[in-house]
């Protein structure tokens, strides 16, 4: 959350791996620092057939005994049900959770158009999965229900609740508030909102053999070793604040008592076409989020995706409350890559000196617009450097979830990292 980042020298940059065709049909990546009781493996496949890709990626990721959980991140171009069928052929009976993406993260660099799978295994881990459906309109209640996943998992010394949400659900903060109201501060939260490759037609969640929308999947993970979360962004505020004079349900209607769209576009000195063309608006504003001041820093809010050119309101990401102040934020490749390093470092440092067996890395889809193709390759390289040979896996999200301090945990424009000790 903090805009400050550590100073990390970028690692090896492998831009050729951005394209799926460069991934190769199937790649098993990352050596595992195999602990006798805990391991994580990652596999990815660019096979065009969903079932074949699922089989190949799962086969590559299943590198140890007692697999506990299959995490799958699927490009929107695949048929999710086919991918699930392929996965379950390889790992029958192992819980599967996953979602569609705006790009998949893993060793070898970010990709578009792959099936990327992480398998977490060993008797040192235990998991329990719970699904809430028809969540819109009852976000808080769904969150309270999802928290019960923690009751169902075998107890270990450390635990985390991972949430995969449908990115189209509004007011995702309420889901987290519902979870928090039941679990309290004891259980950290981590996760992300599914994406749809910027089609804006809706992504999908996957649980075992089911493909879901308007749903949230909760995975309670317990471990005998520490589980640690890091979350950072690379934004800082510029100019004078604006007062949010009307807002609700994830939308901002007026800023400084004028239509929010007009004030926002004036402040970011948007080109004329951004005022009339939603696509131009989104492209321009993705790299210009709004920020809200918190005690320990700025929180970014992405308001680029749900513009109302007629009503002249903006919306899309996390909530900006009526009555608050908001700033235009600025960031660049350097500041964002610094934040990438800081998030990884925070997560790994939280393991109390023990090396991780794997990292889950959920990065914001909007950052791709700021970083560009080269920039995200650098981002992947930074993560890979911090992974230092252990598998890592994740996706570009429509919202990141990371609650370690305080009660809030839904973020925009961040990298959230879960280090599995």
């Amino acid at each position, binding site marked *: 959350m903090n805009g400050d980042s550590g100073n990390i020298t970028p690692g090896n940059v492998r831009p050729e791996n951005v394209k799926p065709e460069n991934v190769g049909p199937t790649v098993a990546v990352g050596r595992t620092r195999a602990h006798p009781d805990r391991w994580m493996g990652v596999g990815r496949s660019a096979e065009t057939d969903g079932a074949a890709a699922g089989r190949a990626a799962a086969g590559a990721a299943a590198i140890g005994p007692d697999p506990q959980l299959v995490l799958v991140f699927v490009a929107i171009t695949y048929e999710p049900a086919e991918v699930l069928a392929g996965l379950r052929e390889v790992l029958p009976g192992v819980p599967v959770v996953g979602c569609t993406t705006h790009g998949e993260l893993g060793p070898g660099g970010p990709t578009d158009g792959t099936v990327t799978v992480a398998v977490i295994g060993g008797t040192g881990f235990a998991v329990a999965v719970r699904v809430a459906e028809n969540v819109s309109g009852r976000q808080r209640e769904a969150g309270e229900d999802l928290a019960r996943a923690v009751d169902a998992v075998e107890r270990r010394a450390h635990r985390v609740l991972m949430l995969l949400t449908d990115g189209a659900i509004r007011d995702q903060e309420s889901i987290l508030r519902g979870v928090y109201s039941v679990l309290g501060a*004891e259980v950290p939260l981590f996760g992300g909102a599914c994406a749809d490759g910027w089609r804006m037609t809706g992504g999908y969640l996957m649980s075992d053999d089911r493909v879901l929308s308007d749903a949230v999947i909760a995975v309670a993970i317990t471990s005998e070793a520490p589980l640690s979360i890091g979350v950072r962004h690379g934004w800082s505020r510029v100019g004078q*604040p604006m007062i949010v004079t009307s807002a609700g349900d994830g939308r901002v209607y007026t800023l400084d008592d004028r239509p929010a769209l007009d004030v926002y576009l004036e402040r970011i000195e948007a080109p004329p076409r951004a005022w009339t063309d939603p696509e131009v608006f989104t492209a321009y504003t993705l790299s210009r989020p709004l920020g809200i001041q918190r005690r320990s820093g700025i929180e970014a809010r992405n308001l680029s995706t749900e513009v109302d050119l007629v009503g002249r309101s903006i919306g899309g990401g996390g909530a900006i409350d009526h009555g*608050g102040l908001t700033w235009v934020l600025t960031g660049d490749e350097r500041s964002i890559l610094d934040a990438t390093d800081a998030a990884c470092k925070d997560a790994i440092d939280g393991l109390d000196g023990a090396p991780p067996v794997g990292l889950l890395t959920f990065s914001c889809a909007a950052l791709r617009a700021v970083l560009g193709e080269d920039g995200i390759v650098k981002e992947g390289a930074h993560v890979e450097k911090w992974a230092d040979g252990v598998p890592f896996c994740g996706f570009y999200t429509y919202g990141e979830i990371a609650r370690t301090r*305080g009660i*809030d945990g839904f973020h925009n424009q961040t990298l959230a990292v879960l280090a599995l000790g």
Partner: protein
Amino acid sequence: MADGPGSLQVQQLLELLAVMSSFTDEDAAARGAAERAAQALEAEVAAVVLDGQVVAAIGFPRDAVAEQDLLAVGRRERDWLDVPGLGKSPAVTASWAGSRPGQLIVARWGYDSFSVEERSLVRGMARVLDLTLTMLRTLRVEHEMRQRSERQAAENTRLLESLHEQQRLLRHLSLIQRAIERRDPVPDVLDGIVAAALDLLGGEIVALWTRDAADSERLRLRTSAGLRGPETVSMPAGEAGAAGEALRRGEVVTVSGYAVSGTCLRDITDGHLRISMAVPVHENGQVCGALVVGSTVPGRIYTAEEAQTLRVLAQNVSLALTDAHTVRKMHQAAHDALTGLASRGLFLERLNEHLAEGRPAALLFLDLDRFKEANDEHGHIVGDEILTVTAARVTTHLRSTDLAGRYGGDEFALLLGDVEDPAEAVAVADRIIAAVGEPIFVSGRTVTVNASIGIALSGAGRTDALELIRAADAAMYQAKSAGRGRSSIHQPI
């Protein structure tokens, strides 16, 4: 703007103010304030205590809220909380007094305690919460008062309507009971009750059924409104719907549609009956029928008040029927069973009453000539017929204020009220003699009897009934002696 010392806290307080105005009840406001306070201070725990009770708490597992510890922090007995997953965490609290004293408590993991600005923010937030809760409480009390007032107004309206209903019922009952007292013809009284039921119960159908005189297992329609078909319809009691059930059970019965009904009931209600309610009616203490209301309106139900109204109307039916029964029995006791004329006892009683009032009267004593011979010759059936025809012919020549009685065998006594003129009495007697002497056609034969009439007038100081009768009787014998078929007036000695 947000960079000065404490400006973030000012901003957070303003945000809380904006958010708190959206809450509509105290529980939501307490929870919202706790979450806002935790968010603003990046704290993991926040709680609201009201009247010594924790009413909202976040940060603890739901089933492990450390209420006693929170209350202790609220009382400033400690300044830390042991939070599951976090351990010992510094806590800060701000209190308010007033009618519902309370505290806002915030605890945050870490070694740093809260800054002066943060403590000030918690105090400000507590003040905002206190004001919000007070406002919501005031609104709730006002809302409850308004609801109570609206409920009272509705109750008053209902009572007024009920009063009007009662008044209408009383008006109807007054009319009905006056009709019964006046001994209006029973059909008129029953029609009045049916009309009252229509008006009071808003029903489309009202019917009074009583046991069929020819077959007590059937019910016959006495009077009705809103039914089709003949007015004399009858049906088996077991197929008469609510009426039959009320008769069988002896209590108020409500029947849906055509339960316990036959085709006859369906026919006379066109198949549209949705619900009916019946109350038994009594005659002389015995259940003899039922008063029924019916509706064709879907969803119609009958209330307890309506059942009571029907019960009261049915009691009046019972009253009318029982009164008529009593009158009939009394009449039977005081009248001659064969001719329907007053019995000897009734005649004497009426005559005495008339004379006691000091009013003049002419008494005519009639005896049929040769009745015994006709009786012996043609049999007593013909004899009875002669007496019946004679009674009818005699009555034809009397005014409604006059009285005819059968005094014995073939003797009749006639009281002509307020007649003082002997000639007037003689004229009546002669007309009767002429009428009685007309041939009688009975059992295929023609029979002729004559009458002899003795006349006595009260005007000669006679005030004793028996004395007047004896005088008329004596005059009758004079007439017979003079050749029968004539009248004779008694001449006082």
